[in-house]
C-alpha cells in the first residue's frame, strides 16, 4: 500500500523526470531533491502543472551542514490551495511538498524565485542575511532582520553564538 506522500512523489517524479535526483517521504512529508542549476525551472513546473498546481510558497529556508559537500541546503516548502472554494474540497488546502537543493559554499549562489512568488522576496532576503547565500536576479537583496553593519551570517554553524557586535554598547 502506498501512502499519499508516496503517490505524490510518483507524480512529481513523472513531472520532473531526471531532475528529481532523490526523494523521500519521512513521516509523511513528501520531499524531492533537485539540482541547484534547475531549481527555478523545477519550481516553476511544479507551480504551473495543472494537476499538481503548487501555487503557494509557504517557506524558504536553508540548513548549514558544515563539513558536508555541498555545505548548504536550500529548503522550499510548497502547498497547493484552491483559490475558489469547491464543494467537494471545502478546506482549500490540497497537498504539500518540500523541495530541496544543495548549495556549495563557493560561490554560494542560487537563482532567485522572486519572479515566481512575491513571498520569496523577504524569505530569500532572510536566507541571505542568516546564511550568506546570494540569490541571483533578486530585485532587492539587502539584509532584512539584521543591520547593514553586521559582519558575518549568524546561522552558519561556524558563527560563534557568543559573538556580540552591537552598533552601540559593550563589545567582546
Amino acid at each position, binding site marked *: 500500500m502506498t501512502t499519499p506522500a508516496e503517490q505524490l512523489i510518483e507524480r512529481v517524479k513523472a513531472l520532473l523526470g531526471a531532475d528529481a535526483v532523490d526523494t523521500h517521504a*519521512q*513521516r509523511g*512529508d513528501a*520531499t524531492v531533491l533537485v539540482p541547484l542549476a534547475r531549481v527555478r525551472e523545477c519550481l516553476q513546473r511544479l507551480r504551473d502543472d495543472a494537476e499538481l498546481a503548487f*501555487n*503557494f*510558497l*509557504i*517557506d524558504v*529556508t536553508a*540548513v548549514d551542514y558544515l563539513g558536508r559537500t555541498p555545505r548548504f541546503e536550500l*529548503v522550499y*516548502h510548497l502547498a497547493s*490551495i*484552491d*483559490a475558489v*472554494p469547491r464543494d467537494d474540497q*471545502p*478546506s*482549500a*488546502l490540497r497537498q*504539500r511538498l*518540500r523541495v530541496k537543493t544543495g548549495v556549495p559554499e563557493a560561490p554560494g549562489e542560487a537563482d532567485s524565485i522572486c519572479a515566481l*512568488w*512575491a*513571498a520569496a*522576496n*523577504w*524569505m530569500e532576503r*532572510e536566507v541571505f542575511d*542568516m546564511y550568506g547565500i546570494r540569490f541571483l536576479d533578486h530585485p532587492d537583496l539587502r*539584509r*532584512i*532582520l*539584521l*543591520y547593514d553593519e553586521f559582519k558575518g551570517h*549568524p*546561522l552558519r554553524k561556524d*558563527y560563534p*553564538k557568543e559573538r556580540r557586535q552591537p552598533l552601540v554598547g559593550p563589545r567582546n
Partner: protein
Amino acid sequence: MAGPAPIPTRRQKGDLHTETQLISMGPSHPATHGTVKIMLEIDGEQIVEMDVQVGYLHRGFEKECESGTWYQAIPYTDRLNYNSAILANLAFCMSVEKLLDCEIPRRGQWLRTLAGELSRMGDHLTRLGAACLELGAMTPFLYGIEARELVWDLQEMLCGARVTSNYVRIGGLQRDVTPGFLARLTTSLVRIEELLADFDKVVTSNRIFVDRFRNTGMLPLAKLISYGVTGPLLRAAGVPLDLRKAEPYLVFDEIDFDVPIGTTGDNYDRFLVCQEETVQSIRIIRQCMPVLEKTVGEPVNVADPRIRWPAKDRVFGRMEELIQQFKGVTEGIRVPAGEAYAAVESPNGELGFYVVSDGTGKPYKVRCRPPSFANVAPMRDMLVGGMLADIVPTFDMINMIGGECDR
C-alpha cells in the same frame, strides 16, 4: 475583486509643483502595536512609496534553539507571539513529535485543543481591542482587554504564567488542569460573551469605525496567494484555508465549528472574521470541557520516559524515575535523525516549524515559519496609492507581532 481604488491626486494641471515628503514612522510609534519602521514617501496625505523595515526585535531565536536541548527550545517559542504563546509551544512540540513518531494520549489532545483555543481568543481580543484603541476609541479596547484578562487568568490557572505559558511539552503537557479550572472557565466564558456582545454593539456598526475600515488595505486574491498570506487576511478574501479543517491535528476532526470567510478582503472583513473566530473558539472550548470532565484521571503525557520524564511524585520517591529525570534534563531527549515540518493554525495564519535532527540531544535546525513575516511583506502593496490614515487600520488587521516576525 479589485485592489484599492485609485485615489485621484489632488494636484490639478497648472497647480504649483510640490515635492513629496519623506517621513519615518516607527520603529516605536504610539499607534502601532508592533516594532517596525516604515519609511514613507507622501504627497500630501497620499502614500507614494513605502519601505517596511523589520528586524528590530530579532534576538537569534533559531541560533538559541540550536544551542540547547529540544526541551530548552520550548520557552523560546513563548516569546514569538506574546498573545498566543501556547500555540507556538504546540507547533514546535508537534513538529518534534512528528519526528519522534509519538502520539500523545487522548486527554492530552483535548486539553491541548482547549488551551490552544484559549490562546487564540487572547490573541484575537488583543487585535480587535487594539485596533479600536489605535483609531482613538478607548472604550471598546477596555472591553477587549477585560475579556483578555479573563483568558489570561485562565491561562495562569493552567500553567502558572499569564503570558509566557511554557505549557506544552514534547509528548504531552506541563501538567493536567488544576482543580477548579473548569468551573472558572464556565463562568469566565459567560462574561467574555457579554463583553464580546458589548464590543460588537459599540464598534461593528459604528459609522466612524466602518468608514476607516471598509475598502482599505485590500489586495487582489492572486497577490495574496503569491505573497503566501495565510490566516484571517486570506480568509477575509474568501479562501477557507484553515489548517484546523484542512489537516485536522489534535482532535479538530471531532469538533463542530465553522470557518468564517469574507468577500472583499478589506480591513472590515478581516475584523469581522476575527470577531467570528473568537465566537467559534468559545464554541470549541465548550465542546472540549465535557470530554475533560469525563476523562478525569487519564494521563495527558506519553508514558515513554525517553520522551517525557515521569511525574515529580515518582521522581522524588523512586530510583529508576530519578535517573530518567536526570538523563532527560542533562542529556536531553534523543530525536531520530531526519526532518519534519508541522504547522498549526495560529491566530495570524500558518505557524509552522521545520526541524532537522542529527540524532543527538540537540536540535540541528529549528526553523519557525512565522505568519507575521509573510503577512507584513505585502503591506507596501496594500497601501501604496492609498491614504496615510489607512496605515494604522491595515497594520492592526495584519496584526504584526514583532517577536514572531523578527524572531
